[in-house]
């Protein structure tokens, strides 16, 4: 067996791949589910927090800033483990899936809040003044004039952050979530062959390349007409 054959046998072992493909596919769909939940709830929560923050209610803003800094500072894995192993002692016992979902949602929301807030601040003061001078109220100005511009500015960093954090679904493997990495590394153990990891990598590509492409499409779609 020369080295090429050994390489193929190790990483592209067709027999091993065929055996574990169905489980990787299951892991793939679970990951898709988890990722969708995280993206939707994380971005929605982040947007909501940024909007609430723009109303400038002091104590509320301190709380938001504290939470946002907290969840940006903590490694996501620490949050997952804290929720999964810590909450049961408080009477709640979330599954690994729910723990991962909640944790990554909080992390994504924290980053999304900062990004959208930055976008809101980046909209020139003149936009507020023009809208307010026509008699529009604060909330209408925010929703119709400022947020549409802030979100456009936010899309590139938001896309990057969303992809980075959604890939954190792999951390669910630590708390027994049967997502792609967890299934793949389990299969590596059973088969004593790393080929399932290759399958896992392919599954991640299939999942995230479209997300990256979608992000790019959104960027062009919402760019201002020039």
């Amino acid at each position: 067996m020369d080295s090429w054959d050994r390489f193929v046998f190790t990483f592209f072992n067709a027999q091993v791949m065929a055996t574990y493909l169905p489980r990787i596919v299951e892991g793939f769909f679970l990951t898709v589910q988890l990722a969708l939940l995280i993206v939707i709830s994380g971005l929605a929560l982040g947007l909501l927090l940024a909007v609430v923050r723009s109303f400038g209610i002091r104590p509320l803003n301190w709380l938001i800033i504290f939470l946002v800094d907290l969840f940006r500072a903590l490694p996501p894995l620490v949050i997952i483990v804290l929720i999964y192993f810590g909450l049961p002692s408080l009477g709640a016992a979330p599954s690994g899936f729910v723990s991962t979902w909640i944790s990554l949602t909080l992390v994504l929301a924290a980053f999304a809040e900062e990004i959208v807030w930055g976008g809101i601040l980046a909209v020139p003061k003149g936009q507020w003044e023009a809208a307010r001078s026509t008699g529009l109220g604060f909330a209408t100005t925010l929703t119709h004039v400022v947020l549409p511009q802030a979100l456009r500015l936010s899309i590139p960093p938001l896309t990057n952050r969303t992809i980075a954090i959604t890939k954190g679904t792999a951390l669910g493997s630590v708390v027994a979530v049967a997502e792609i990495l967890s299934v793949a590394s389990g299969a590596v153990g059973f088969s004593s062959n790393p080929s399932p990891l290759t399958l896992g990598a392919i599954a991640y590509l299939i999942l995230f390349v479209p997300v990256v492409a979608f992000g790019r499409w959104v960027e062009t779609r919402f760019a201002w007409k020039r």
Partner: protein
Amino acid sequence: MIRRRTRVAAEPVMTGPAPIVAAPIVAASGIHKHFGALHVLKGVDLAVAERELVFVIGPSGSGKSTLLRCCNRLETPSSGRIIVDGIDLLDRHTDINAVRRRIGMVFQQFNLYPHMTARGNVTLALRKVLGKGRAEADEIADAALARVGLAEKANAYPLELSGGQQQRVAIARAIALEPRVMLFDEPTSALDPELVGGVLAVMRSLREAGMTMVVVSHEMGFARAAADRVVFMDHGLVVEEGPPAQIFGAPEQERTRAFLRQLDH
């Protein structure tokens, strides 16, 4: 068509500069404004009568823009009193949004909403403030755009328009709400010289239609030709005011003369 309130039509038709009659539309008195340690306005009075065009001139930092911005409470004066169309702007019971729709404002940087077409810029307040339906708002917006000579640009986005066109859309956005008074904050200062004329022409036509206007600007030629009254401000105070012929021809105050001399160079 955009029409001014009928009250105007009932008055005798005036030719030339309007005499100051009845209660002024804008009555600011004893206005002080501090920005931290900076005392920008030091007790300014300004009264603007219906159909009057008042020009406010002065060196930069004299407080003229701040005074204008106090007239729709974009800046809140530290003290003083501002009555616009009979409503006390500084009374905390005043619904400021309701008053602002009667006060049009045009900014130096146009401040058009870049994500909306020219028509969208004009209709936003018509729909969200006056509660008009889409069709009616579009109709009013198109009429306002026609009035500033941009009927064919209704579907253009601000970035597709020249600075002069953007400023005219901004004027359309303000007049579509049928304000009682229009405030212009250096409307031509950000424009290339060849684009100034179009904006001034629109302002002149507004003036001919009887719009009450307060203009902060360095367009002295326009002031000379169109203003009823020129107010010269320096260091947060009104130094001198009077008809343009007097201010430009025979100013009484040395500071006014010095300022006008500088402009000639």
